[in-house]
């Protein structure tokens, strides 16, 4: 009680006028009333500030010559030197192109694939069967890439792997998918779709279940068959969801699937598989080239952020709801 009065007096003695003092009083009152809520918020806020925001601050080492002994703050500024180094790396164009191509391929094939699977799942009228199918197709999402990489290596083994077993049965030549550069990217795309397609349907199915049944009834009255219902009612109804997920995936376009590539690639396919994140890990962490690694990281994040902002703008220009 004392404190509030003190603050009120202080506020009143200032020449800012009634509005400011009123606002301060409200603030103090709210802080007092909700101190339990602030208490609940505090640990989460601290964790996020420390583990998400301090690393953002740590990115300043991309503009410094980071020295382990002086730490982030005391290391000398070097301007854009690290970025120049990065862009001059002979491999840089290759890494950037790989990142973009791999992500683009995954988006081009994986994004529509999940929508198609959702539409087909949505057409299942037997609820028990539908739920069972969903449970099964979600499952691979929960298995680690380490395990998947193990499975993939075994399946694609040129000597006794299942895939080559089938190839040979049809009279083909065995292919070593993991060391053959021309097969490596398609392999990444296919295995990524395999693992994540089911999970990708969750949000679409949720959106589809929210479509007003009257719309379908009306469409049936007008003589629309299932395909027409899908095309004219289901798809337009989930368009906002599709757009939002598309913007978000564009923001991830430079992720390319670090774990998957890291676990499956090898020097034989570096030319087609090395991406920004794998490069950052090798240069930045393994070779302790922290500043260069951070510069590459910034480069990636900024492009991703720009892509999200840009797409959001375009989406809104075309009269749809964006992310914000």
């Amino acid at each position, binding site marked *: 009680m004392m404190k509030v009065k003190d603050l009120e007096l202080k506020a009143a003695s200032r020449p800012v006028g009634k509005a400011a003092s009123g606002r301060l009083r409200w603030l103090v009152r709210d802080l007092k009333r909700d101190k339990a809520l602030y208490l609940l918020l505090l*640990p989460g806020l601290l964790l996020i500030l420390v583990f998400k925001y301090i690393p953002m601050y740590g990115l300043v080492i991309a503009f410094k010559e980071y020295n382990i002994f002086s730490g982030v703050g005391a290391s000398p500024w070097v301007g854009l030197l690290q970025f120049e180094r990065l862009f001059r790396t002979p491999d840089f164009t290759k890494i950037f192109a790989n990142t973009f191509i791999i992500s683009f391929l995954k988006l081009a094939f994986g994004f529509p694939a999940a929508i198609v699977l959702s539409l087909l799942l949505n057409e299942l009228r037997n609820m028990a069967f539908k739920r069972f199918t969903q449970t099964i197709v979600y499952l691979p999402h929960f298995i680690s890439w380490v395990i998947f990489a193990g499975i993939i290596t075994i399946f694609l083994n040129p000597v006794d792997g299942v895939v080559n077993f089938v190839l040979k049965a049809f009279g083909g030549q065995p292919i070593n998918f993991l060391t053959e550069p021309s097969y490596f990217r398609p392999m990444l795309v296919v295995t990524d779709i395999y693992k994540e397609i089911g999970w990708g349907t969750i949000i679409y199915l949720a959106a589809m279940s929210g479509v007003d049944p009257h719309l379908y009834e009306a469409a049936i009255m007008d003589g629309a068959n299932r395909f027409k219902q899908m095309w004219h009612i289901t798809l337009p109804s989930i368009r906002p969801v599709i757009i939002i997920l598309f913007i978000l995936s564009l923001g991830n376009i430079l992720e390319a699937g670090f774990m998957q590539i890291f676990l499956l690639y090898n020097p034989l396919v570096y030319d087609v598989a090395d991406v920004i994140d794998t490069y950052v890990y090798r240069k930045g962490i393994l070779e302790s080239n922290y500043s260069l690694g951070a510069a590459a990281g910034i480069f990636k994040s900024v492009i991703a952020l720009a892509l999200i902002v840009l797409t959001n703008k375009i989406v809104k220009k075309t009269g749809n709801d964006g992310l914000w």
Partner: protein
Amino acid sequence: MIKNTPGEKIFIAVNYVFMIFVMMMMLYPFWYLFMYSISDPKLSATGGLFLKPSGFSLASYSLVFNNVSFLSGFRVSFIVTIAGTLMAVFFTATTAYAISKKRLRGGTFFTFIFLFTMLFNGGIVPSYLLVKDLHLLDSLWALILPNMLGAWNILVMRTFFAGIPEELEEAAKIDGASTLRIFFSIILPLSKAVLATIGLFVAVFYWNDFFSTILYITDKNKWALQAVLRDIVNNASSAMQSQGVSIGYQQTVSENTVKMASIVVATLPILIVYPFIQKYFAKGAMIGSVKG
């Protein structure tokens, strides 16, 4: 209901067949691993394992369960998963509850602070330096803390809490319950579905986490299971040798059967937990995603 046309009937039939095919595709790798792991290595090495195991041998499993590094990895991942998940669910809930209250001053601002981390992050190198500066390298905390709170999980829970009728809390308040009391004895018990969902996501993340180990842990005794597993998968022969597997023993196990058995054992916890929590998460994930 209007009757289906012949074209629609064909579509429905094809759709069901297609779904069964998809399910078989999704399940086949697991079946393959399992039958390979219990096959007799002399027979499986000749290839041709396709639908059923050839021969029968559990020798690979006995090797896995006697592999010191596998067991230590299993233990590390178990501790990290249990401790990490409990803390993550608790703090995600407290944070989400606070920002779900519209009356909270600065609530929008705090929500933005969380949201922004979904769009932009410091990346690998600064995160590594942070953990290093906190002297958490080679500590299990390095596997737990950096990934404990995710913005998406917080937002999912916030949406869920915001959907709980305000009247419930007001009634409790009239009865003299404090905010903390309301949170612990009314909100949390009502939120089992979303707590289970987020719990499953976080637990799976911790159980599957491989990158934190290679980034933060050099001491092999503190490696999480996935890192150990990768070692075994890449390098089964040396792992077997270091275990003192004699030439004679190699007649009953092969590199591949050991790999398969390790993968099966490492996957088992997820396969066991998954069916129980599955019914919750479909609901929970949808609540979070639709309203966003």
